Structures are given as structure tokens and as C-alpha cells.
């Protein structure tokens, strides 16, 4: 392996990596704009210039590859390459490049939604000059909509062309292009081909400045006010890693989080804007018990007791319905309560889309089908017929949530039940049919693990505070189970449920949040 020396630090790294990657991996900061690990290298921003000993010119570190050199050409007899990222020449160069970048960049950080996570802002602060020598008028162009969700502020654009390359290479839709050349060049779309693909939101993410903005977040807040929580998208079974940005109890936006094993660097707009679904829902905040045609709120004790009574009335004719929207832990606990009959409602599907870059939107629009199947023993294929044959009179249902639209068939089946207990966060169609509604956590409040369709267990982290009297799903199920089976398995926290789950299912043995971490843990390769 070639041995590098960057700023006096010895680094041994694989041949063929770039200096930029080598430096980044070793905590040496080299600024850049046009480089993106998932995109083709163009080296146009010139921000990452470094000095490489033995080369007359400064080199762009994003396109300078590390390789073994013959021993007689090694520097100091041992280094294959000696790089300076901090010397006067480089520092001065960065200043100059930043000066150029800021020539026509408006100083409207105060208005710009990127402020706070803007590379131009950060680098100007770190490396730039304090004052601009530019006396002339800045180039001013009006904002344009590139697509229904993306607006471009041409003035802020620094022509890194990441967005153009994104549409060409990742989404393969090539809506964006650079119009004209030189001083007049700008990012544009053809009038009849706007940027409206399902990955469009990513261009706002990758834009290093505030030129490309998502209309969904524009002028909503400032980034430093928001809490950033790494989590997992729950809108399809791919399970893209996301960062959830929230303020107090409101989610403001989702951005993709890097996970090369799952989603790379991007996410689709279905997931990106999916959180809006939960904003205007009829939230269940207290346990509800049916009284005639309407519900009355009850406290937890009565609700649980009522649940137990209903189940006990015809214990052998009770079925549990697990949900691919819930975490492994909730499904596991429900599965343990109703071992005899366990099933799930018909899957919620959409269009399966695979982009040329390999990015995928799964047809299965529920996040945890794989996990649900893994973790529930004896889950029946055709629940409807099973209900008929076994004369099921009581159902305990984990509600899929707002996405579930009950068809008439199921409405009929559920309507015929003696008693229905639903664990839900909202008054969905399903919950309205229930006799007892137990308020659980909404998707972005839940904690637990989910398994994506490729068998990767990922950590679903709560991004919002708990609402009023709702309890974590696993805790509710634990209470029901304890009361029903006279058990005293008291789980204080989710980790204990996971442990229990591991004891039962070999694939999930030894899974902890620590092990899952931010990047997930793959159970592929293990026999299922």
C-alpha cells in the first residue's frame, strides 16, 4: 500500500484512492464544492487544490490518485507522495478561489436557507478573506422553478455542477443542464422537461450552497434551531437512512444520510416529503373505549383491563394481526401473545423503481415486511380464510397507520368481530371499528429496529417527543401480555425486548442498538 504524507501525517492507504479521500479519512480537512463521492469527478471548483511535492502546479486533490511509485522515486526514501494542504501557497490559493466564488454570490446568508450548513459560508469563514475587493455590480438573475419542488436561486449558484451530474448519473433523467458558458453559464431545465423525478429533492441536499432549495423547507426555519436525529425512512422497504430535522414537536425536513449499504447518499421524494402525512391526522392521545357508537377516553389501567376482558372472553378464538409498519419488537411481542393465529393485512404496494445508479424505491411501501415475517412464527398466508375456518371472534390489531385504506372485504370481516382491539396512533378507518383503542407512538416517534428487504436491521430512532398519554407500543404490548398470561416479564427498556427476541430467533441473536448503530447490521448470510 502506498505511504502518504499529508501535512506531516503518515497515512497508508489503498492505491487508487484520491488524496482528498485519504485526507478526509484521516481527519484532514480539504475544502471542496464540486466533488461528491457518488458523482463523476470534474475538478472544476478548484477549491481542493493542494501542493504535491515534485509537481510544479497545485493539484486538485479530488483527482490526484495515490499509487505506488518505484523506490527510486520515493520522497525521503519512503513516501510515495508528500502532500501539503496547509502551507501558505495552498491557503492563499483557497482565499483566492473563495474570492472568485463570492464575486457574484450574494451576501444574503440572512435570507438563505442554507445558512448554517452552507459550505461556502463555512469555508469563507475558515479560509476566506474578510473583505471583498469586488467593486463591480454583482450578477443578478431572478429565481426560477426547476421543478415543482425545487427552486433555483441563480445568484447563489457556484456552478459546481453537482446537481447536473446528479440528474445525469444518479437519476439518469438528465433534466438539468448548464446553459450558456463562462460568466453567463447557469443551471437550467428545458421548459417541457422540469425536474420532477422522484429523486429531485436530493439536488437541494447536495447543493453545497443555497442555490437549489426545496420549496418544502424554504423560509421555514433556520438550521441551527433544528434538532438533527439520525433515523430510518419508513416509507418503503428499502429503509433509506435519513436525518430528521425537527423543532420541538414539529418535523421540518428529512435529508438523506449516507449509508453505502442501503441508500448511498440519497433518498427519494416519497420518503422526503412523507412526514407531512402525519401532520394533520386525528391523533389518539388517550386510551379509548367504545361506548355505543362513540368512544370515551379512559385511563391506561381501565383500557388494559378492558382489553384483557375482551380477549379472555373467547381466548381460543382470538387472533393477532401484526403490522409491517411496526418495529420488530412490537411484532415480536404481539406474536408471543397470539401464537395460535397470527396474520397481517394485505400488503401496501406501489411502483417499484430502480434508477440507473442502482438507487431503488421498493414496491413494498411498508418498512418492515421482512422483519415482521422473520420475527413472527406461524404467520398465516391467508388470514381472511383462517379467520373463517377458526371462527375467530376477537382481533388484536397493530394498526398500519394512516397509509392503510381498509377495503370492504376487511371492513366486513372486522365488523363481524365480537371485539376488536387496535393499537394505533391515529383514528384510522381501522381504529374506528375498534372496541378499545390503545394509543401508541406515531412512526417518527417510535423506537426500535426494523429490517429492510435486504435483511439489514436498522435502528429506528425517535425524532419527536412523546405525545400526551401515548405509550411505546412495546410497553403496551408488554402490559397486555403480562396481564393476560399472568407473566411478570417486566421490560424496563427496549433492549431487553431485543434480547428476548434474540433468544427466540437465531437471526436476531445478539442484536443491540449498539451493534446496529447508525449504519445497520445485515443478517443476510445467516440461515433464516
Amino acid at each position: 500500500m502506498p505511504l502518504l504524507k499529508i501535512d506531516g501525517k503518515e497515512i497508508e492507504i489503498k492505491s487508487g484512492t484520491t488524496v482528498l479521500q485519504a485526507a478526509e479519512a484521516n481527519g484532514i480537512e480539504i475544502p471542496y464544492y464540486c466533488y461528491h463521492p457518488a458523482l463523476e469527478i470534474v475538478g472544476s471548483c478548484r477549491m481542493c487544490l493542494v501542493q504535491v511535492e515534485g509537481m510544479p502546479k497545485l493539484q486538485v486533490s479530488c483527482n490526484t490518485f495515490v499509487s505506488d511509485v518505484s523506490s527510486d522515486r520515493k520522497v525521503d526514501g519512503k513516501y510515495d507522495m508528500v502532500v501539503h494542504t496547509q502551507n501558505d501557497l495552498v491557503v492563499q490559493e483557497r482565499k483566492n478561489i473563495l474570492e472568485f466564488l463570492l464575486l457574484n454570490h450574494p451576501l444574503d446568508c440572512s435570507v438563505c436557507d442554507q445558512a448554517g450548513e452552507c459550505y461556502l459560508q463555512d469555508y469563507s469563514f475558515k479560509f476566506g478573506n474578510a473583505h471583498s475587493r469586488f467593486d463591480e455590480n454583482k450578477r443578478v438573475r431572478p429565481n426560477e422553478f426547476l421543478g415543482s419542488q425545487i427552486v433555483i436561486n441563480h445568484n447563489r449558484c457556484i456552478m459546481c455542477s453537482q446537481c447536473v451530474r446528479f440528474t445525469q448519473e444518479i437519476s439518469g433523467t438528465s433534466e438539468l443542464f448548464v446553459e450558456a458558458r463562462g460568466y453567463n453559464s447557469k443551471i437550467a431545465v428545458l421548459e417541457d422537461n422540469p425536474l420532477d423525478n422522484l429523486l429531485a429533492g436530493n439536488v437541494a441536499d447536495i447543493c453545497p450552497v443555497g442555490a437549489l432549495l426545496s420549496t418544502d423547507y424554504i423560509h421555514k426555519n433556520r438550521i441551527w434551531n433544528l434538532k438533527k436525529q439520525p433515523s430510518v425512512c419508513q416509507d418503503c422497504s428499502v429503509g433509506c437512512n435519513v436525518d430528521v430535522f425537527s423543532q420541538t414537536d414539529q418535523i421540518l425536513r428529512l435529508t438523506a444520510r449516507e449509508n453505502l449499504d442501503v441508500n448511498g447518499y440519497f433518498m427519494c421524494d416519497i420518503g422526503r416529503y412523507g412526514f407531512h402525512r402525519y401532520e394533520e391526522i386525528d391523533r389518539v392521545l388517550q386510551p379509548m373505549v367504545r361506548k355505543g357508537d362513540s368512544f370515551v377516553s379512559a385511563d391506561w389501567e381501565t383500557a388494559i383491563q378492558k382489553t384483557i376482558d375482551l380477549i379472555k372472553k373467547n381466548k381460543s378464538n382470538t387472533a393477532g394481526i401484526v403490522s409491517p409498519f411496526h418495529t420488530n419488537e412490537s411484532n415480536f411481542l404481539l406474536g408471543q401473545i397470539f401464537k395460535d393465529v397470527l396474520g397481517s393485512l394485505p400488503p401496501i404496494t406501489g411502483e417499484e423503481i430502480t434508477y440507473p445508479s442502482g438507487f431503488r424505491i421498493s414496491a413494498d411501501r411498508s418498512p418492515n415486511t421482512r422483519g415482521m415475517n422473520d420475527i413472527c412464527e406461524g404467520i398465516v398466508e391467508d388470514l381472511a380464510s383462517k379467520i373463517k375456518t377458526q371462527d375467530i371472534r376477537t382481533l388484536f390489531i397493530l394498526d398500519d397507520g394512516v397509509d392503510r385504506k381498509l377495503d370492504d372485504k376487511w371492513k366486513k370481516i372486522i365488523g363481524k368481530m365480537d371485539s376488536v382491539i387496535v393499537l394505533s396512533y391515529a383514528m384510522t378507518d381501522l381504529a374506528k371499528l375498534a372496541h378499545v383503542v390503545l394509543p401508541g407512538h406515531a412512526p417518527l416517534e417510535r423506537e426500535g429496529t426494523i429490517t429492510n428487504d435486504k435483511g439489514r436491521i436498522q435502528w429506528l430512532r425517535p425524532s419527536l417527543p412523546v405525545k400526551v398519554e401515548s405509550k411505546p407500543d412495546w410497553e403496551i404490548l408488554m402490559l397486555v401480555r403480562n396481564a393476560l398470561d399472568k407473566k411478570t416479564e417486566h421490560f424496563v427498556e427496549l433492549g431487553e425486548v431485543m434480547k428476548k427476541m434474540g433468544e427466540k430467533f437465531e437471526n436476531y441473536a445478539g442484536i443491540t442498538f449498539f451493534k446496529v448503530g447508525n449504519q445497520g447490521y445485515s443478517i443476510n448470510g445467516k440461515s433464516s
Partner: protein
Amino acid sequence: MATIVKSYEPTFWDKLYLPALMRGLIVTFRHFFRKNVTIQYPDQKHIPPEGYRGLHRLNKYPEGRIKCVACEMCSAACPADCIHIIPGPSPWDGGKERYPVRFDIDLLRCIFCGFCEMACPEEAIELTEIYDFSDYTRDDLVIDKEGLLEVYDLTKDQNYYTKKNLSKASSVNTSIDT
């Protein structure tokens, strides 16, 4: 080189202190007859000097547009955490496409340090010379955007406490009552 400072050697009269005491008495006695400087506050208003940090205002452009772009630098800079802004797209054209939908300042938390003024990149928030704002409830002392703009109207042309405006003295209270 150190300079040697000779300590003052008190004279006999100094040690006696009496002349000094007399001088002191004369000083105060002279003041007894001087013109007094008291301002009869509610009747007369003190006109604060330039740079006085009193009630806030939100500045407007001559054409009526709010200068504030809701960048929240002021709320970030505020040591008392008394500024709360909800931004939104601006209803005006041209350039600054963001403006505060809500802009609340909790005057009871505010310590009038003026950091918001310093942090403001648009020179939108400014502390005026108004010092006599008071109210009966805590809620009434949270001044909102409309109130702040009203303060601007009251203070943009001249010092709030100059004669012409005095008749409006009560209007400040109503302005922040909102």
C-alpha cells in the same frame, strides 16, 4: 527606570482636617443654591441621549417593506433568549424573499443589551429611545411584529420624546398591548 514618587507630606492644617471639612461644607452649600436638574418625570420626559437602548422597533424601507428577513441572527445572539421568529416567504418582490411572519420579543426577558441590533445584518431591528413602556400583564409585555412596526412609525422621524409626540405618550402602551 522607575520614577520615585514622593508621597505628599501633610501639613499641620491638613492633619487638622478642619479646613478641608470647611471646604467640603462650602461645596455642598454652594450646591444648595444651584438650579436643580430634576426632571418632573411624568409631566416632563427625559430625552435619552443618542444610542440609548430602549424599546425595540422593526425598521421598514421607505416603500413600506419590512427590512427584517427573519434570519434569526438576533434570536441566536440574544443572551436572554427573548426573540421568537417564525419566518415565511415575503409578500414583496425583489431580492429578499423571506420575512418574519411572526416576530415576538418578550420585553420582560429582554435585558436591552443591544446584541440583536449588532447581530442584525439588515439593520432591521433597532433599539429606540422609548423607555416608559409598562403594562399590567406579562402577556401584554410580549411585543409582536405589528407592535414593533408601530414603534417604528412612532420613532422614525424624530425622537419619541420631543414635544410634538408627547401627546401620543399613551399610544405606546396601546401599541404594545397587542
